[in-house]
């Protein structure tokens, strides 16, 4: 009577898979407090991680939008003729780093200037007849970091009277944004590792509590994978449950934050955050993946030691 399955059957039967999932869930319940501690560790870590992720992505977004606004204003010699203007434009376009050149004739320049003054624009009424402003170009570079180099080149062109790109301020801004980005990455990596060790340690405790069970399984001839699977499921569940809680908290928290900002900073251009979606899809995906990875990794690392019976 073939009572046992003597072949090393690698393809797992559905029935066996069901058993492992059932055992994994049962273990999660049976070790109630320890599971709770594990899940809490994942939750807290991923919550902090999530806050940092959202912060980092918004800083990134802010930095990018600021970087995008960086432009060079090139003012031409008032005496430059139309041919000269054309020539300068050709020269600027010939610089490989330049992405766009926009010509702003002096009339347009004056209009923009008056617009920026708002109500006091009447003070300059009538200047159109004798416009003191020079013609200008607004130059944008492909990579905002090339602004200074491109500006230096343009400065040497003939008929370029002066230019302005917020020297110093731009460099400072870039230094700040990249520093913020680096600090964020280091922080997130550090937190991720802390979470992993916390979880590996907690799952190790739950396995120690089941040492006898594993010993007996080994003695009656269970395969290593048969023993590993329930722990794998348990770790995975802890990681996923631990990730779901911060996902819910962060999504609702961010939703209310956006709402609050919208009502108090009405129409403010300066302070824009990323919209709820797709940001929360990305953050949720990352947290779920990290949670699952941490849980599986923690359980497998811990179970390895006990399989050498």
């Amino acid at each position, binding site marked *: *009577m073939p*009572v*046992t*399955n*003597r072949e*090393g*059957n690698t393809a797992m*039967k559905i*029935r*066996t898979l069901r*058993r492992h999932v059932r055992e994994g869930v049962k273990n999660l319940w049976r070790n109630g407090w320890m599971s709770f501690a594990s899940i809490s560790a994942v939750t807290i870590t991923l919550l902090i991680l999530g806050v940092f992720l959202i912060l980092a992505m918004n800083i990134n977004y802010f930095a990018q939008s600021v970087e995008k606004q960086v432009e060079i204003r090139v003012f031409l010699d008032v005496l430059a003729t139309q041919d000269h203007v054309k020539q300068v434009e050709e020269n600027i376009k010939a610089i490989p780093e330049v992405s766009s050149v926009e010509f702003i004739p002096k009339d347009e320049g004056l209009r923009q200037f008056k617009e920026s003054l708002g109500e006091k624009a009447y003070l300059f009424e009538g200047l159109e007849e004798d416009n003191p402003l020079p013609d200008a170009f607004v130059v944008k570079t492909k990579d905002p970091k090339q602004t200074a180099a491109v500006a230096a080149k343009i400065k040497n062109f003939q008929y370029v009277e002066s230019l302005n790109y917020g020297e110093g301020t731009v460099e400072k801004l870039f230094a700040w944004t990249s520093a913020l980005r680096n600090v964020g990455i280091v922080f997130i990596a550090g937190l991720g590792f802390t979470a992993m060790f916390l979880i590996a340690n907690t799952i190790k405790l739950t396995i120690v509590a089941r040492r*006898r*069970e594993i*010993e*007996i*399984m*080994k*003695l*009656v*001839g*269970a*395969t*290593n994978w*048969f*023993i590993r699977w329930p722990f794998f499921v348990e770790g995975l569940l802890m990681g996923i449950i631990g990730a779901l809680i911060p996902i819910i908290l962060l999504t609702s928290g961010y939703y209310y934050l956006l709402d609050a900002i919208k009502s108090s900073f009405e129409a403010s251009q300066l302070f824009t955050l990323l919209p709820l979606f797709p940001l929360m899809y990305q953050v949720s995906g990352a947290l779920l993946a990290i949670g699952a990875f941490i849980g599986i990794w923690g359980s497998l690392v811990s179970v390895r030691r006990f399989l050498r*019976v």
Partner: protein
Amino acid sequence: MILIEMFDVWKTYPNGTHALKGINIRIEKGEFVYVVGPSGAGKSTFIKLMYREEKPTKGQIFLGGFNVSRIKERQIPLVRRSIGVVFQDFKLLPTLTVYENVAFAMEVIEANPKLIKPRVMDVLGLVKLKHKAKMLPSELSGGEQQRVALARALVNNPGIIIADEPTGNLDPDTSWEIMHLFEEINQRGTTVVMATHNREIVNTMRKRVVAIEAGQIARDEQRGEYGYED
């Protein structure tokens, strides 16, 4: 037919202890063998080598067609399925009932679930514990617990039962009960290898006796005596 065979088996532990020094033995199918000897003489190591809890430092061990000294890690479960092991401390799972403890051994080797219930009830009948199937180990006496452990060892139909001091924790009457079960199992064709300190049993229920002293086989007699004063 030879079931277990050892050729010049040595075992030295990492701490330098020479547990076994050149063991040669043959055990035929259907035999009943007592392994006796003073504590620390190598009995436990000898037993552990058979179910591959320990690996020999030197020498060859054959067991039911497997070269136990050479098999790969992932083949160990296959060897263990042909052996039933019984211990002094029973090693039952306290949270599972008697039935569940026995069924556990079939579940973890992925036996056909339809066969589990009849087979478990069958072995529980053999050890006369059918009526206590729903009880927890803590509700049973020591002898009853050891009978559950024996049922678990038997449930997968192994050709060999290896027992390490199975009566070590039991009173004399209960010990005899257990020994009669072992004898019954043996008479049904299962080979039994049992390490024991029980002089009365060895001298009364006469079987082959292998005495291990200082890591070597000092004596190997059919229908032998215990031969120690302890």
